């Protein structure tokens, strides 16, 4: 297909053309990561497809198809849906606070018939869409620093507060960081950023002491000295580090990771899947996986920067920020560089909800790529 063909009016709206515009290299990398996840699920179940590997791959296939479908959805539809999705997410978050089911002492789930919904996951997408939508109509002058920024700040703080109350510290941090990253990308003044960073650092110690629940505080404090408490809270970190370190350069071999096979690793199929991988495939395997994650982030950011609409740019970059935060927080946690906060490794970890969120997000990213030349109607700074 020549460039001249694409410039023909209406040509870009043909489905087959859109299909070809999807970044298939990006999709291949996602498949590789999810495949590696399936491989590890297979290994830790004692070379069995059940209970984790088969559902993991099946879900990925399903959500991958959903992502392709979403990639074909016109960016203007995304634009129009931005505020409603955000509002639905907000309502559900309030609902979960009132009616939600608690799991492990935290209220995170909402049952709608047979489907269990975790509203905080909807909010991850909703917030990215809403902020992108809002910034789309904002001048760069206002984005730098003005009273108009009160709106995105509130957009961020309300869901963060609700999620933190559940309590789900990991997701709250993730949502807050994603929102912050989007404001930075939107053009927030460097001076304000500097003040914000310093303020945040100063706020951490009192927050740890007064706001956090005791178990949350324990997690953070033991993260700093895991060896002091090898059988209590520090146990997870220590065992994870042992799994990683004992993998060495080449790993113990597929299916031979003793730390995971003998249950020394906690949450081995979900939050600590990376440690399992590290144990069995060593430094080489880990490095390859980190490289693939880096590639995903790089490609997604490139897609964001090629979009002609500010909504598309910020939306794709916001999703990428969420994804990068997942990877970095989980990686740091598994390697003993951050407290245990319950953030999974996207695409590797077992669990449908996060995979769905990530792939819907990448649906947006792909839609931004497919529709990179689409003009999105500008609405200046108005919410509706």
């Amino acid at each position, binding site marked *: 297909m020549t460039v001249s063909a694409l410039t023909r009016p209406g040509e870009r709206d043909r489905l087959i053309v859109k299909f070809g515009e999807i970044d298939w290299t990006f999709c291949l990398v996602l498949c590789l990561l999810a495949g590696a996840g399936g491989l590890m699920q297979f290994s830790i179940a004692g070379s069995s497809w059940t209970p984790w590997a088969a559902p993991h791959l099946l879900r990925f296939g399903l959500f991958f198809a959903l992502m392709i479908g979403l990639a074909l959805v016109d960016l203007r539809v995304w634009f129009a849906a931005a505020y409603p999705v955000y509002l639905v997410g907000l309502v559900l978050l309030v609902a979960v606070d009132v009616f939600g089911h608690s799991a492990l002492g935290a209220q995170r789930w909402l049952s709608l018939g047979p489907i269990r919904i975790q509203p905080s996951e909807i909010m991850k997408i909703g917030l990215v869409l809403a902020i992108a939508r809002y910034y789309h109509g904002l001048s760069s002058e206002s984005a730098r620093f003005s009273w108009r920024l009160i709106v995105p700040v509130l957009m961020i703080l309300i869901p963060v507060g609700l999620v933190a109350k559940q309590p789900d510290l990991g997701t709250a941090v993730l949502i807050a960081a994603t929102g912050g990253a989007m404001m930075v990308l939107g053009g927030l003044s460097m001076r304000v950023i500097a003040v914000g960073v310093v303020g945040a650092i100063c706020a951490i110690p009192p927050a740890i002491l007064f706001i956090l629940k005791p178990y949350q505080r324990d997690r953070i404090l033991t993260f700093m000295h895991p060896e002091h408490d090898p059988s209590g809270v520090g146990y997870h970190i220590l065992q994870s580090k042992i799994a990683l370190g004992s993998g060495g350069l080449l790993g113990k071999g597929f299916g031979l990771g003793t730390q995971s096979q*003998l249950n020394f690793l906690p949450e081995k199929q979900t939050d600590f899947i990376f440690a399992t991988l*590290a144990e069995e495939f060593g430094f080489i395997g880990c490095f390859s996986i980190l490289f693939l994650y880096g590639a995903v982030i790089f490609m997604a*950011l490139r897609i964001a920067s090629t979009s002609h609409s500010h909504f598309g740019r910020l939306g794709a*970059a916001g999703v990428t920020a969420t994804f990068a935060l997942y990877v970095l927080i989980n990686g740091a946690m598994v390697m003993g560089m951050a407290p245990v906060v319950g953030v999974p490794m996207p695409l590797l970890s077992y669990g449908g909800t996060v995979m769905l969120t990530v792939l819907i997000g990448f649906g947006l990213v792909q839609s931004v790529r497919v529709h990179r030349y689409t003009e999105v109607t500008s609405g200046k700074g108005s919410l509706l």
Partner: protein
Amino acid sequence: MSEPSIFFSEVNERQGVFTRRTFLMGGVAGLGLTALGGQLLRLQVIEAQRYQKLSASNQFNFRLVPPPRGLILDRNGVILAANRPNFRLLVSRDEMDDVNTTLDNLAKLVPMDATRLARLKKDVARAPKKSPVSVMEDMTWEEFSRVNIRAPELPGVTADMGEVRVYPFGGAFAHVIGYVAKVSEADVKKAGPDPDPLLLNPGFRIGKQGVEKARDLDLRGKPGAQKMEVDAEGRVVRLDPLGDKPSTPGKEIRLSIDADIQNRALEVMGEESGSIVMMDCRNGDILCMVSAPSFDANRFVKGLSGAEYKALATYERLPLLDKAQYGLYPPGSTFKPTVAMAALEAGVDPESRVNCGGGWTWGGRTWRCWKKGGHGSQTMHDAIKNSCDIYFYQTALKIGPDPIAKAALAFGYGQIYDIGIPGQRKGIVPSTAWKKAANVKNPANQIWFPGESPSYGIGQGALQVNALQLAVMCSRLANGKKALNPRLIKSIGGVEQPPGDAAPDLPFTPEHIAYVQGGMKAVANDTSGTAYRQSQLGLGDVMMAGKTGTAQVRSYDKVASRNSASVQWKLKDHNLYIAFAPYDAPRYAIAVIVEHGGLGGATAGAPRAREVMRTALLKDPEIRARITQTTNLPDANAGDVEGAAPEGVDAAAAPDAPINPGDLTPPPPAPTGDSPR
């Protein structure tokens, strides 16, 4: 849209800022990934070995494999202490949700009364977590399999097979070998800050008495380890036999004791209380060392019930006490050969005579001979044979206490022998030096009163010896040359222990030794000897030499009779006998003490000595050869009434305790008079 130029420039500026910020964000993400990669490098490449070690220690566990305890054998290889398989039941608190319910369920499966159950609950609650408590030992196969079948209903309960100590002869060796029993807290404390892990192993038994205690570390061995793969909950996933470390069995200990002689000795003691020690008088090996009555050491291995222990501890004949080593007695007339030796060494002419008229007045009182009518004119030889008190009163007075003490020490009294087991008492050999040292607080009593010497001469007074020392004395005299030391442990783990004849010579003139031996030969073989009939072995020309003795345990008032059957057991005299055989070429020496055995060493001591001596002699192939060659059997009629008559008949003549100490006799301890034979 109405002002395209402004709109576009605005858009362009936003895009420019965004692109720059995207680079920033990409950079931050890249930095983060690099940091992760760096940490990976540190953990997986630089510190990999450390974590590999940690991983292995997670993965593998070692289960302690207790070593088999070393056997204890007699001199001929007869097993005295061994191990047998034992089905036992362990309970550990860690796995149990509700200890009490589980134990209640258990009590329905195996016999367990309420008090035991209560004690068990307390034990389990007190034990450290994960450390199993032994609930029951020695289950029958039926009980063992019943518990195994119900295992799912009994979390934390395991039935397994261990080893338990067994003493095939029950009580015959209880005081020598001792026994093993549960490890007490004190045992663990004694082991220091880093105790042998075996001590904490359930079912482990530690030596508590005798050889088992003294040689515990030799017998214990070194534990091995069974390597196994475990999961995070500590469940065994797989065994790894290639990684096992075998245990080192405990060393085998061979005693100098002969099981046949020991058993015979305990047998002849019957219900009596006392001790028999026999030694090989050629090399000092202890052939038997019995303390009677004894107890079944196997009971202690299992754990004694409170009532059982109380019964043993409070019985008046003291079965738990090792009388051979710990019991101290006045040697009575068995001391007379020692006094005779002292006199000979002091230059007393053995042929000079002393007239015994049944009593001797000296120092304001009358010193009586056991024979009311007296023995008449006595040489030293006669005096030993007849056990004449008057002769030895006077001889002791003549030579004084220190030469007697010197001879007594040379014969082995007044010292503790290192025979490898604890529990010996030294006894007392009085002398002027001893008197001084013993009465520091009472200077008036520090001098030796001449009135003490006559009593000393007949083995009474402050003199105190134990049965082992009596046997050593007899062995040294029979050996005639060496100051033999007793040896109980022949070898440990195949390493021969130093023999008892690696000792200096006796400081006595050989003629004098032969003379005293001759006296003892007469005791047993002259028809007029005090133990003639009781000492006939019936083994042809293999004959025994001996010396009787009676140790007085109280002062007698004038009314009570000493030899009446009506006298309460506890108030009767101790009955002693020392002997060696064959008298022409001595091999075996024996000492017998029968507590409260009654008057006269011949009645209770000599017949027992004879029986044990016969066992020893008949086991000796050279002696048996000699007996079968002998044609001239002893004349059955040679036994004569005088010697056969029980010695105690005239014993009522025993003198009273000094009624009037006068200026010659000291304040207490006063010689309580004679009683000797």
